[in-house]
């Protein structure tokens, strides 16, 4: 029985819809007794969806061109991470410097990045409630850049938690500060893809929009 189960052949294409996938799985398990092969419906995923990995896609030139052209990008790295590091390294070789921010706890992006903003540290026990004022995150780092630096990349992690208005501000931030580029990690995908952040935030028409 186990050798029959091991020898069963299934086509590599996944099911076209979750319902069919569910039925197919139940059917496959119901047919454990007899040695017949489970049939699979033809699906959308082709062989090209399984080509990928580390060495297949030399797209660094397109990445650098898109960063220069669009100035604010939404990226979708794989879930386990690691791929954004090679794209970050390429920007570092170009002469960019980085401001890494987490979107959680960012507060108001406009105030935090471009204005003097208050921060209230937690009061531990018998302490007066303090209120500290910090310089603007982007403008302070821009003032510290040396003159030959190419620019400042604001790398926003976990940007999937931001609302559309906050993403819109991040998309227009390079228009306010010309030496700033914005990279926002807006989600995850099974390969590394990116898109102009203005199209994600709704400031430009999206050519890939469906229906």
């Amino acid at each position, binding site marked *: 029985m186990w050798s029959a189960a091991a020898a069963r052949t299934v086509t*590599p294409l996944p099911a076209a819809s979750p319902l069919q996938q569910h039925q197919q799985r139940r059917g496959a398990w*119901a047919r454990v007794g007899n040695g017949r092969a489970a049939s699979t419906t033809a699906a959308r995923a082709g062989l090209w969806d399984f080509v990928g*990995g580390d060495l297949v896609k030399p797209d660094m030139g397109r990445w650098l061109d898109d960063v220069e052209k669009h100035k604010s990008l939404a990226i979708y790295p794989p879930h386990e991470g690691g791929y954004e590091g090679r794209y970050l390294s390429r920007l570092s070789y170009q002469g960019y410097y980085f401001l890494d921010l987490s979107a959680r706890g960012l507060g108001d992006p406009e105030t935090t990045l471009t204005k003097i903003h208050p921060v209230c540290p937690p009061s531990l026990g018998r302490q007066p409630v303090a209120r500290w004022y910090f310089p603007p995150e982007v403008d302070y780092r821009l003032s510290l850049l040396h003159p030959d630096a190419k620019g400042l990349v604001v790398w926003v992690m976990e940007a999937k938690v931001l609302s559309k208005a906050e993403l819109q501000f991040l998309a227009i931030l390079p228009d306010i500060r010309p030496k700033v580029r914005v990279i926002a990690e807006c989600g995850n995908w099974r390969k590394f893809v990116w*898109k102009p952040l203005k199209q994600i935030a709704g400031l430009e028409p999206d050519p890939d929009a469906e229906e």
Partner: protein
Amino acid sequence: FRDRVYRFVMVFFPLFLQPIIMNWMRLRWFKRKFVETYLQFMFTYLFFPGMMLWAPFVNFRKFPRDPTMKYPWSKPKEGTPLFKDRYPPIETYK
């Protein structure tokens, strides 16, 4: 003649058998039982150089919850389940 056959086996087995083995592991990873796990480990050990050859060119990550989504910014269809099960459905155990 025997040397020629052995040379053929040495060259072509890692190149052509390894995608079949990796796809078998992709399909059965959360469904396999003891004997099948044993066989998968056995083939991994035997064809490990081919696995290292093929690994940088293969992408076996999971598909999204709605398999018809073309982009990460697409909207899933209406009846898509909220979480994707990794294991076989639970009602088959009842």
